[in-house]
Structure formats: structure tokens, C-alpha cells
């Protein structure tokens, strides 16, 4: 069988044969085909199964509105479910398989559902499957879930790459049919920056599918000529295979370009590009969509939209049938009969629901029935005949149906626009409230005759650019002959006894809408939700209006009174991969690397993600097989001699200005106004609600110059907060902020030998002895021969410690130098784990304690909050519930049995109390193994903790099982008097 239904016609390239497979069968098509046109040319009728009843489904449309012909494209990890054959461009080697059947497409086991259809009426599942209770999850639901869904994901990672981009223009024209081309021509000729996009791979829209002429040439020739003229303009960008899928606030349009979907392989180039289009004007030229008429068994393969039937014949030379009947309520349906007859196709009948005379000359041989009704059709896997209301039976293998055309108003509704009803064309047209900058031209605006479409596009193109101040050219619109466009609304054949489909994919019938009405689901939104109408992959593009008409009939109201459905983006479904673009795997978010990263990598460091940063977690030495060995060693070596840790990730903010001190005094809860030059102070920052926001230090380098550090996690938030205070609360202050986090590589040098080590690199003219540079001193110094540096005598570890900062360009060199210089002291580098162990040993709060829920009082720093000044958070920190006598406080914990391991996240319960929420006294926030103490230690919050030293409570961990006894102790496990850090 080779292209038995192909005729010599259309816009395909018969010289270029393409082989493809459908359900394993190798077939042949031509360049310019869609999968649908190629399947039709090869005589295929049935290509899929419906969602609920598993009824045979054929190709229904010739565009993106397709509800039926959904296939799985490609295979393996490239498998793409629910792909519309009607918009799938044929390529050599294309693989397609049908979906949603068990067994073969032809003999689908699940088709048994159709026999039970009367039990599976709309919403039946809400009324049953409730008994016995356990059966829902164990039996009913698994069966339903297994039957549901359409196509199948491969379960493998999507192997393709995607990209995104930004486009800017004066005028975006959506749709390159006659109105779009006309609009782009007039806007482009005026010199505006124009983008013209169309979802099809060929510009021209319906001109490619019709036999109408423009400017005395065939429509598609005119389209080609217009495209050539446009592509010669520098200011015009033409984008085929690109769908404007959504209209967002302030004129932003989302568009998807399918770059390689028409190729057998994307060769590692982006498969699709998601464009965000910023445009001053959008001219929507999206055309219109034909809709069907509902009648008995109107869902059989071979029953198609009339416009689609002639598109297949005119554009693709593919015959949907050899003996075609037409059922229409409008003049346009007749075009199908005429075009096909001209191509020599037998027209068995034209049934027009309207009374009166045929609007055009009748094709010879066709039976014409004016005022006719089709009540039923026959043919199991494809239509074979139709039955009329008068009992007449007419054989046919393709029935072309036209219920009129609905303007594609989707993008006009993506914001608040509601379409309005126009009785003369029996259709909704764009309403008054259009998205910002949007205009609608052509069929999308309800102008259906080709001549008016051409004029409309031309005029709106001109209007858009003259709005923007461009000078118009004198060119006229292209012209075409007037065609008749009469229509008389007709939605469904009431005489039909058999089920009449509205939503072909989700199997919603006229009866379902009536049942919905009967049960009170009368609002359009109730109707959709109750029956699933319009919820399928086509979003009811062909189904919604006829269904609305049936509901209107039930309620006795007009269609606009009954309602309209709101269209939501996207216009057609968009691959999630495209919406994600490049953001996946390691590229999901940027990575920030510390200045010592390359060096740490050389040392074999294990890294951990902290926000966007990667930090060294620990540095394994040869022979160390467990992370604890490395961490214990790093801690021990640091406390015994000296250790070095990259602390660049802490936020650093340069603060300058005459009011810098006064500003900090308002930002911090403790006093800062009188901090002497050359000193650092620890500060706590509250949110305005009195809860701890952050802690850190600020160093004063001169009267007007401070350098603040924040925690790594809060660096961005604190900066933003300070800018808010500076600009919005105290704009009168002379204070300036700039981040210097990136500017300096900063290392903690900690341990009894820290000074000795630093003295080896600090230039001799800087005295850093304990006397000259005591605890909490800071200064601008030079190292290694005039390299500028900043030195801070601050300690997170509790040891004699410094933080030294050099310009980032020297960071890598400095860490190598310090390690080399420290060799004689057995220096160690340490990572975030050892840092954590040492800060817990010292009782310092960190992220687990500063979790946005704790107060300074909870952290044992309540007295630091000054009551004598105005600062952020001061007033509200005094609220009663934040100052309860039995409030939480941060204390230390040690296991009663030293061999027990503490776990963070355990909850504290008094001995003998039942484990429930009422008896919950707090939780363990941070734990570590202390190599110095030889047992596990923890920090945690417990009610009145500071008054309960020595008490034993239970640390309960029902989540992981078990509980242990712990003793409440001081949080300062090491050197509680602070002698070391002052040494």
C-alpha cells in the first residue's frame, strides 16, 4: 500500500520522498507533509482511541485544535506522548505509535468501556466506589489510575536541550495568514521593528489550504511573495514553527519556537526555544477554528471538519476519502464540496441544515438536502454511511462537517478579557478589554471574508505603527474576490437517538451536558468540571462552543447569557522542558566558588552546597575512611595549633558616610554609635517584629567607614533590608552601602599558633601582638610585601583567631602561602563541618538557631537589645508572648551516657511524661561530636533552660526510633571564660 489516497496537487514536494513508520508499519510521504496528511495519503482512517470509552478515533482537523489524532512520536528517551499528528511535520525516519489502547489499536481490550458507557455517565465516579472504605485505595483507584492518562512518558531523562531568549519589537504579529501577512507588510514597510510568527512551518495560514485568489494570483503564491518581501526587510523578523502561547501583563507575550522538532535529531542544539517577547503592539491574527455539529455517532474516523478536508486535498494532495459527504450549517462548508469536486473527488451528498436554496452551484452527482439532518453514522473503525432524519442512508467514507467558525480569541482572554457574542456569525469575538497593546485582525476578530481579512490586517498594521509615530507608506491592502459567508446557527441534531459527541477526546456527549444540567451543574465552570468538557489536550477548541449551546438550550437562555469559558494559557500545550530552558542538572542554578576553591579541589576536599556557594566541607587525608576522622582531626589540630578556613562566603558590606555609625546604631539592636575606630563589635540584628534576623560583626576603619559581616545565608536579605532602611526610613542620613563580599578573599586563622603563623606573612611595620592588636581589634595592614589586607581579631571557634582579608585576586595565593608558612606549626585547613563542631563547642548560634522563629532572649542575648535607643525590632520585641517566663532558651546538652549520640531534631520531654505535644519542652537544634570532650554535644532550645542546669531530660526521637537521657549544661563547652580567644 503506497499513498493510495494521494493526488497530484498541493504544496508538497513530491520529489522528496520521506519514509516513516506508524505502529511499526513503514510508510511513505513527501516533504511538506504533516504526519496526518501522510497517514491520510496512505489510506489510514483510525489513528487512536478516545480517553474514556476507547472509541476509535481518526484525524479530525488539520491544525493545532486536533482533539483526536494524538500519537506518541519517536521512541526511547525521545518518546513524546500526546503529539498531534496534524501539526507534526513529516521527516525521514519519523516513528509514530498510537496510544491509549491495550492490545492493538484495532482490537483494544479497553474498548469494553464503550459497552458500559451508560454506567460511566458524567460524574458517575462521585456517586460510587465508596464502599467498602478500604477498597478505594486498594482496588478502585489503582484500576482507574491504570486506565487513565493518554500517552506515556519514557521515564528517562529528557535527552534534548532547550533554550530561552528575549525578543523586543514595536509590533508583534501573531499568525501569518492573510491578515497577519497584511499587517506585517504595512507595519514593516513603515520601518517599525516587526516580528511575524506562525505556528505552522509555512507562512500563509488558510491561504495554503484554500483555492481563493489574492491580487490575481493564487492565495498561496501571494503568501509566498509577501513572505519574500518581508524577509528582505532588516526590520522584520519572520518566525515559523513559533506559537504565541500566552499573553501576560503589560504586553509581554510568551512564544515557543520548535527548532528541531521537524528533524530526526536535534544534534545537541536546542530542540525548542522559549521566547519572551516585549512588544509595544501585538496584532493578533490567529484566525479561526471550525467547529463540528453534534449528531449520533459523530465521532467515527472519517468524520472531519470540512475545512480540514479541503486543506488536506488542496494543500497536501491527500484525500481523506473517495466518496465524501458534507454536513454544514453555513456557506463555507460548501467550499469543501466544490474544491473536492474540482479535484475529481466524488461528492456523495451535501446536507445543509438550513432551509432554502443552495448558496452555490451544486457539484455534479451530489445529493443535496437542504434543511437536512444526520441522525446516525455507521462503520466500526471508520465511517461507511450516514443516516438522515428522513431515514435515507447514504454511503460515504468521509463526512466533512462544518458548524461554522469560532475566532481564535484565546490570547485576548489570557488577562481579564471576556469575549462577546455576535449573533450574525454565531460566534464569540474578542471583547472590549484586550491585553495591553493588543489589537485583533482578520478572522480572529470575526471578519471571515478574505477581502475583509486582508484589509483589516493592512489597516491594523498601519494603525499600530502610526500610534508609535512611524510614517505610513501609501501601499494598499491586497485584494481578493468577495465570497459568501452566510451561517445559521445549528449545534446538534435533536432527533439523534445515539450518543452525540461534543468533546471527542474526553468523550463528553450531549447527554452528559443534559445530565449535568439535570443535576444542577449549570454554570459553565460547573459543567466543565463535572463532565470534564474542554479539559483535554485540545482545551475544547472545537467542543466548548457547541457544548455551551446545548447547555443554553437546556436552561432556555441565550448562549451569552449561559456564559463563556475563560481561556487560560497556553494556547497550545508547551513542553515543560522548554519552560525550564537550560535550568536543569548542575545548571539549575549558578554556582559560586570561593577564592580557595581550586586549591581545595587539589586537596581532595569534599564540597557542600550552602545556598549558591560550594564550600569545602572537610579535607580528607590519606588513610581517613570516614568523614568523622577528617573532621575530628581538623578540630583537634586547630585547637592544638592552628587551622585555616575560607570564610569568604560571609556577606561583607562596606558602609560609608557621616551617619554610618548612627545608621548602624539603628540597624543593630545593640549599641554601635560609640564603637572606636580600629575595633570590631559583635552585633545582633532584629526584624521589625523583634525576632532575630541575623548576627555578625561590624568593624570601624575610620569615623565614616565600617565593614559589616553577615551570615552567608542572609547576606542578600540583610543588604536589601539595609537599603530599605537607608532609602525609605532614614533618607536624610549620609550613608552609603556597597557589597564587598566578592572583593575580598577572607580566611579564618584560628588556634594557639594563629598569631605566629600570621606574623610570618604580615609585613613588619604592622604590629599584631596581643597588646597592639587585642581581641576585637581590626585594622588595614599589608602582607607579603605591600599587598593590602584587612585583619580582624574575631573568633567563631573560641580560639585565638583572626580573619584576614586580601583582594580576591590574591585569595588563591594567600591560602597556599598560609599553608606553606604554617607547615612548621602543623597547620590544617578545615571545612564547614569542623567550623560547625567548634562553634557548637563554643556555644555560638548559627543557622539552625537563627531560624527566623527565635528571639534574642531565646538565644540568651536578651540583654543585648538596647532599650535606650530606636532600632529596628526594639518595640515589638517587648510583646508578652516573646517574653514569657517559661520561654525557650538556648542551652547545651550532653548525653548522660557518654556513648550515646545526640541527634538534631529530637524533642525534649521531662522524665516520666508521656510523649505528646502537650509535654513537648523544646528541641535539639545542633549536634556534633566533640573530639575535645570525647562525646556528643548539642545545642537546643528548652523551656527555662538557663535555670535548669544539671537537670536530666529525655531527648525523644520517635521519628527515627528511640530516645536518650541528656543533661542540660552550659552552651559553652570549651573555654567558658574566653581565655583562649584573648590569649
Amino acid at each position, binding site marked *: 500500500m503506497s499513498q493510495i489516497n494521494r493526488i497530484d496537487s498541493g504544496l508538497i514536494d513530491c520529489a522528496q520522498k520521506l519514509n516513516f513508520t506508524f505502529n511499526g508499519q513503514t510508510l511513505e510521504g513527501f516533504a511538506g507533509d504533516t504526519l496526518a496528511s501522510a497517514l491520510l495519503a496512505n489510506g489510514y482512517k483510525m489513528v487512536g482511541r478516545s480517553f474514556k470509552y476507547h472509541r476509535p478515533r481518526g484525524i479530525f482537523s488539520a491544525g493545532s485544535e486536533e482533539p483526536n489524532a494524538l500519537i506518541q512520536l519517536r521512541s526511547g528517551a525521545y518518546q513524546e506522548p500526546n503529539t498531534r499528528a496534524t501539526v507534526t511535520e513529516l521527516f525521514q525516519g519519523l516513528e509514530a505509535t498510537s496510544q491509549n489502547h491495550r492490545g492493538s489499536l484495532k482490537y483494544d481490550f479497553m474498548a469494553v468501556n464503550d459497552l458500559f458507557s451508560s454506567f460511566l455517565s458524567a460524574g458517575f465516579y462521585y456517586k460510587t466506589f465508596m464502599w467498602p472504605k478500604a477498597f478505594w485505595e486498594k482496588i478502585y483507584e489503582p484500576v482507574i489510575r491504570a486506565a487513565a492518562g493518554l500517552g506515556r*512518558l519514557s*521515564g528517562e531523562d529528557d535527552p534534548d536541550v532547550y533554550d530561552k531568549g528575549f525578543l523586543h519589537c514595536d509590533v508583534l504579529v501573531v499568525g501569518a495568514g492573510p491578515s497577519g501577512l497584511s499587517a506585517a507588510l504595512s507595519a514593516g514597510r513603515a520601518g517599525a521593528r516587526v516580528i511575524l510568527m506562525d505556528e505552522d512551518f509555512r507562512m500563509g495560514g488558510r491561504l495554503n489550504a484554500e483555492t481563493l485568489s489574492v491580487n490575481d494570483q493564487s492565495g498561496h503564491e501571494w503568501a509566498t511573495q509577501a513572505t519574500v518581501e518581508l524577509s528582505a526587510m532588516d526590520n522584520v523578523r519572520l518566525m515559523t514553527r513559533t506559537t504565541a502561547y500566552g499573553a501576560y501583563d503589560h504586553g509581554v507575550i510568551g512564544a515557543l519556537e520548535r527548532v528541531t522538532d521537524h528533524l530526526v535529531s536535534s544534534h545537541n542544539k536546542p530542540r525548542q526555544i522559549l521566547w519572551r517577547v516585549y512588544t509595544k503592539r501585538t496584532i493578533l491574527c490567529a484566525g479561526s477554528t471550525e467547529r463540528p455539529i453534534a449528531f449520533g455517532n459523530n465521532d467515527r474516523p472519517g468524520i472531519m471538519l470540512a475545512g480540514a478536508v479541503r486543506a488536506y486535498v488542496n494543500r497536501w494532495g491527500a484525500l481523506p476519502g473517495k466518496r465524501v459527504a458534507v454536513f454544514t450549517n453555513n456557506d463555507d462548508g460548501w467550499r469543501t464540496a466544490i474544491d473536492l469536486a474540482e479535484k475529481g473527488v466524488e461528492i456523495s451528498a451535501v446536507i445543509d441544515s438550513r432551509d432554502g436554496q443552495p448558496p452555490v452551484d451544486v457539484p455534479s452527482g451530489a445529493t443535496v438536502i437542504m434543511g437536512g439532518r444526520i441522525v446516525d453514522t455507521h462503520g466500526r473503525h471508520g465511517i461507511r454511511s450516514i443516516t438522515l432524519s428522513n431515514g435515507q442512508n447514504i454511503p460515504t467514507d468521509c463526512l466533512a462537517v462544518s458548524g461554522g467558525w469560532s475566532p481564535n480569541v484565546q490570547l485576548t482572554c489570557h488577562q481579564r478579557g471576556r469575549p462577546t457574542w455576535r449573533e450574525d456569525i454565531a460566534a464569540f469575538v474578542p471583547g472590549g478589554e484586550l491585553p495591553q497593546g493588543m489589537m485583533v485582525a482578520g478572522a480572529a476578530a470575526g471578519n471571515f471574508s478574505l477581502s475583509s481579512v486582508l484589509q483589516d490586517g493592512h489597516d491594523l498594521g498601519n494603525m499600530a505603527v502610526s500610534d508609535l509615530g512611524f510614517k505610513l507608506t501609501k501601499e494598499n491592502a491586497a485584494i481578493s474576490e468577495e465570497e459568501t459567508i452566510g451561517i445559521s446557527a445549528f449545534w446538534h441534531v435533536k432527533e439523534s437517538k445515539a450518543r452525540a459527541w461534543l468533546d471527542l477526546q474526553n468523550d463528553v456527549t450531549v447527554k452528559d451536558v443534559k445530565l449535568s444540567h439535570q443535576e444542577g451543574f449549570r454554570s459553565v465552570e460547573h459543567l466543565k468540571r463535572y463532565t470534564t468538557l474542554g479539559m483535554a489536550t485540545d482545551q475544547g477548541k472545537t467542543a466548548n462552543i457547541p457544548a455551551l449551546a446545548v447547555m443554553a438550550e437546556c436552561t432556555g437562555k441565550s448562549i451569552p447569557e449561559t456564559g463563556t469559558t475563560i481561556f487560560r494559557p497556553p494556547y497550545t500545550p508547551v513542553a515543560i522542558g522548554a519552560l525550564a530552558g537550560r535550568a536543569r542538572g548542575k545548571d539549575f542554578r549558578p554556582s559560586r566558588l570561593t577564592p580557595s576553591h581550586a586549591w581545595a579541589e587539589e586537596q581532595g576536599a569534599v564540597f557542600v552546597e550552602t545556598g549558591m556557594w560550594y564550600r569545602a566541607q572537610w579535607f580528607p587525608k590519606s588513610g581517613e575512611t570516614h568523614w568523622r576522622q577528617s573532621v575530628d582531626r581538623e578540630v583537634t589540630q586547630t585547637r592544638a595549633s592552628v587551622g585555616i578556613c575560607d570564610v569568604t562566603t560571609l556577606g561583607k558590606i562596606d558602609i560609608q558616610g557621616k551617619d554610618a555609625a548612627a545608621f548602624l546604631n539603628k540597624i543593630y539592636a545593640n549599641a554601635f554609635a560609640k564603637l572606636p575606630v580600629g575595633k570590631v563589635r559583635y552585633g545582633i540584628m532584629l526584624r521589625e517584629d523583634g525576632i532575630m534576623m541575623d548576627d555578625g560583626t561590624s568593624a570601624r576603619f575610620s569615623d565614616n567607614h565600617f565593614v559589616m559581616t553577615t551570615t552567608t545565608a542572609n547576606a542578600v536579605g540583610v543588604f536589601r533590608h539595609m537599603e530599605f532602611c537607608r532609602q525609605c526610613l532614614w533618607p536624610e542620613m549620609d550613608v552609603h552601602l556597597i557589597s564587598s563580599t566578592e572583593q575580598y578573599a577572607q580566611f579564618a586563622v584560628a588556634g594557639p599558633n594563629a598569631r605566629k603563623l600570621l606574623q610570618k606573612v604580615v609585613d613588619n611595620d604592622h604590629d599584631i601582638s596581643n597588646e597592639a592588636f587585642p581581641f576585637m581589634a581590626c585594622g588595614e595592614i599589608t602582607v607579603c610585601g605591600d599587598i593590602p589586607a584587612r585583619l580582624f581579631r574575631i573568633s567563631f571557634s573560641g580560639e585565638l583567631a583572626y580573619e584576614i582579608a586580601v583582594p580576591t585576586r590574591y585569595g588563591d595565593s594567600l591560602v597556599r602561602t598560609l599553608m606553606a608558612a604554617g607547615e612548621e606549626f602543623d597547620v590544617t585547613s578545615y571545612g564547614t563541618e569542623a567550623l560547625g563542631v567548634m562553634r557548637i563547642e563554643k556555644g555560638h548560634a548559627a543557622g539552625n538557631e537563627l531560624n527566623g522563629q527565635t528571639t534574642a532572649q531565646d538565644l540568651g542575648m536578651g540583654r543585648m537589645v538596647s532599650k535606650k535607643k530606636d532600632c529596628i525590632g526594639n518595640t515589638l520585641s517587648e510583646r508578652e508572648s516573646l517574653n514569657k517566663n517559661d520561654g525557650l532558651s538556648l542551652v547545651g546538652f550532653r548525653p548522660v551516657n557518654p556513648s550515646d549520640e545526640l541527634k538534631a531534631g529530637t524533642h525534649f520531654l521531662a522524665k516520666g511524661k508521656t510523649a505528646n505535644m502537650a509535654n513537648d519542652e523544646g528541641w535539639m537544634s545542633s549536634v556534633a561530636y566533640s573530639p575535645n570532650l570525647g562525646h556528643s554535644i548539642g545545642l537546643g532550645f528548652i523551656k527555662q533552660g538557663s535555670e535548669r542546669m544539671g537537670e536530666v531530660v529525655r531527648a525523644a526521637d520517635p*521519628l527515627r526510633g528511640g530516645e536518650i537521657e541528656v543533661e542540660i549544661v552550659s552552651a559553652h563547652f570549651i573555654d567558658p571564660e574566653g581565655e583562649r580567644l584573648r590569649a
Partner: protein
Amino acid sequence: MLKYSGFKVIKEALTGHKGWKPVWRTPKPKEEYDVVIVGGGGHGLATAYYLAKEFGITNVAVLEKGWIGSGNVGRNTTIVRSNYLLPGNEPFYEFSMKLWENLEQDFNYNAMVSQRGILNLFHNDAGRDAYARRGNSMILAGADAVLLDQDGVREMYPCLDFDNARFPIKGGLLQPRGGTVRHDAVAWGYARGADNRGVDIIQNCEVTGMVIENGICRGVETNQGIIKAKKIAVCVAGSSSRVMSMAGMRLPIESHVLQAFVSEGLKPILPGVVTFGAGHFYVSQSDKGGLVFGGDIDGYNSYAQRGNLPVVEDVCEGGMALMPMIGRARLLRMWGGVMDMSMDGSPFIDKTHIDGLYFNGGWCYGGFKATPASGWCYAHLLAKDEPHPMATEYRLDRFKRGAMIDEKGMGAQPNLH
């Protein structure tokens, strides 16, 4: 009352479905009710249902501006769970969970309560510690929780990105009893149950003013006239500020848009609900096969039921980072709901300073899962004028006292909760 059952469905199928009646009546409003509930969403309908069923108060009207269920009960991602941390929240949500578990038999409507589990992933030790604390809170409150390591997650969801992730999955907190519920059916089921017990459900009835005399709220003005009531129960999350401003009240609430997304129908690939904290993404697969997913709120005050592209892309980025196998699935539809974002991320069920006027709102993006408990506790408050024991903390004055219920620790910044 027309009882639904498999038998009834079969009988109707054989007799042409002629016997089905409207699921709720379309009554004209009476002049006065004992309780008027403003808002025919999930919470309002549940309140009416429990008022009638549990507290015997049936002279009740539910006033709905549009069609019932048109608010957030019909535009959420259908997740139910009780995996909260704080004592003010966890018992309440666990109460709700237990009500979900018996709901369908209770109101004779299949809302497809499906406990396929909810898994919150963590990516580092601090995340594990926070979830351990939370899991223990849940168990102490009588809920269920399981802490999974990476292997445990891999066993349930082999299709996640374990090997090449920017934020590697280290484990997760699983609540096996969490899951999903068919959202619209919840509204319809409660509506049916309330209607059958005599509650008047009045659609297309917009409240335009409060009738307040001498500090006592005596009724509401509507587009269908004044309706008097002994108690007015406002329950209009998303529009709380708008409605309460009619009584002159300012609330600790901002309205924000939360977008939600559904893919085309697919054969089953995800058993339960997964949330990806590092990437603002959560997902489940509906019984119809669509991947239902969402992420953060858009982040600016809005009453428009639609969002913008940056969040759409952010959510899909999270999705692809978590499960790169969904790249070829297509996003079918996106929509937005308007959330009452409160100042600490937790709701309110309380009397107001105006006698006869009650308020239920501030549900943030978590109102759906709370529907049964919210209805029950609100009904309790209305019937007995004291808070239900499970909802004692949801008071309007808690910020004055400093008794915030701030699960995320974000402070008075509603768009961060």
C-alpha cells in the same frame, strides 16, 4: 435524601438516568437566618455542613457571589497533608487529616481521598535536622511521619535526578497518610450534605455591605436584598480584606496570586506527592493522568486570578531539576488563585470585635487541606461562641501578643510564607 451508591448508578444507567436530582436546590433567600455564611467555597460549605450535622443548626444560608466552589477550592493542587511543625498548627491539621479519612462515607460523595503519601525532600544536614524536628512534632501530635534517606527516596521515586543535581537529594520526610483529594468534589459533597439538611445555598448572591447597628452585626446587604442573621460568618479567603473592610476592619492579610499547572494526561508515573524545597516545586499526578504542579506565589498583591511568566518558568525549572524525565510532557493549562496571605503564614478562626461577626481566613496557600477542620472548628465557634480546642491559636489578636505561628520563620512578610 437521594443516596448515592454503585447500585443506584447501575439502576439509573438502566433507566436512562432520569432519576438524578439537582445536587443542591436553588432557593430564594429567606429574610432571616440563624447563621449566614458569606462565601460558598470549601470552607464555607464545610462550615454549613458541620453546623447542620454536628451542631444541629440548620437555619443557615451560604451566600456565594458566583458559583459554589469558584474560589480556591476549585483552583488548587488538591494536596492534603498534616506535616506541620508548630504546636499551634499541627494538631489542627491532623484533626483535618482524620476528617478527610472518613469524609466520603460521612457525606456520601466520592471525593477520591487518595492517601498516596507526600514526600518533602531535603538536600543538606540542616534540612534534615529541620525535618527531623518537624517529623517528631508530627508524631507527638498523633500524625505519621517517616524520615527517608537517599536510598529510601530512590526506591519510591527512581525517576528523580539523584546523580547530577545542583542540590543533591539527601533524603525526605514522608507522610504516608498525605495525598490528594478531588477538589471540586469536596465543594459539591459538602454542598449536597448541607443542602440535604436544610441549608440554603444561594449562588450569584454578592454581599455588598454589612448591617451593623450599635456595634452589633445584624445581617448583610446583598444584590438580592438585605439578609438578616444572628451571626454572620465570613469565610471568603482570597477576598477577606475586601469583605471585612465593609465592617471597617483592616486585617493582617495581603492577597496574593498562586499559580497552579497541569500537564496533558499521562499514564501513571508518579505515585504520590513530592515537594522539592530547593527548587520551589511540588507535584502529584491526578487520577486522570495529569501532572498537577505548582511552586511559589507570584509575590505581589493581586486579586487577579492569573499570574505571570517568571513564576511559570521558575516552577518548571524546579520540575526539570528534580525530575528531568518530564521535559517532554507538556504543560496544558495554568491558572491562578487569590490567596489570603497572612502575616505569619497561619490562618484565623475567630470572633471579631463586632458582636455577631465572625471571621475565618488567612489560609495562605494551604486552605484546601484544612477544609474539613476549618469547617468543623468554625461551626464549633459559631455554635458555642468559643474556639474549638484544635483551633485555639488562630486568633486575630495574636500579633499584638507576639504569639505568631510562623512555620517558615519569615516574619511579617506575607509573600515569603
